[in-house]
């Protein structure tokens, strides 16, 4: 279990660092709400500081990967008096069932919240006639 956790952690860091052209960037695991209705799966992800253009969503096999790149401000901010959070990129991975239409997934970003909707496939129903 430990090994797997380390691998995931490493993977998260490498993923973002590679895209940042070898610049070391902190990676955070954002808070997520996962909801399911009869028709769809809904993911709500907190990514403050991330612009819509900096979000990457990939669904491969049964793995959903959500990434957000934080663009740091270039403005001179002065001396740090209090730091309760640090700026960095976001990464989260989920295993989801295969019975989804990944190609019909839609996403929107508003006020630092990513909303991803993935329609579910209709369960196959076969009517079996009972012979007399």
């Amino acid at each position: 279990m430990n090994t797997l956790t380390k691998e995931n952690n490493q993977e998260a860091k490498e993923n973002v660092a590679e895209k940042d052209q070898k610049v070391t960037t902190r990676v955070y695991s954002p808070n997520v709400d996962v909801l399911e209705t009869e028709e769809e799966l809904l993911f709500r992800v907190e990514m403050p500081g991330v612009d819509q253009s900096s979000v990457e969503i990939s669904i491969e096999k049964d793995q959903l990967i959500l990434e957000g790149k934080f663009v740091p401000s270039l403005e001179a901010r002065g001396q740090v008096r209090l730091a309760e959070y640090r700026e960095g990129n976001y990464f989260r991975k989920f295993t989801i069932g295969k019975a989804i239409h990944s190609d019909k997934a839609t996403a929107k970003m508003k006020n630092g919240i990513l909303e991803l909707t993935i329609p579910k496939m209709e369960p196959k129903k076969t009517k079996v006639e009972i012979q007399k």
Partner: protein
Amino acid sequence: MLFRILDPQTKANQFWRDFDRLNDELTRSILDSQFGSASNFPPVNVYTKEDEALVTCLLPGLEPDQIEINVKDNLLSIHGKKKAEELAEGTEVHRREIFNGEFHRTLELPFRVDGEQVLAKFTNGVLNIHLPRREEDKPKKVSVIAG
């Protein structure tokens, strides 16, 4: 006697989902969630320069009109209420990690602020508040005249 028939496929899926959840929680504890819990929501950073303070605050999911900012002397307060969206009937909740509810933060700044000149911007869920120092409190330079 009642026999319960379990679908092996369903059992396997459940096992991997549980495994994934456990793994995700361990990874999260290592990677850190930077949003904290209700007690320190919203997380805040404070920076100061000679003539102003800058307070940045993570408020994902809020609208600008849901945020109230008050300044008095060297005290800044940020108040708001984050409402949870109503769920349609039959919605199953698998995870609830996003904080919803009322929050109130009061911060003490190292100098008094000119309340009339405070400027707040809200972009992509991040609130930036520029708080200019009062003119009369700014450090004054004294030039030395040769005697």
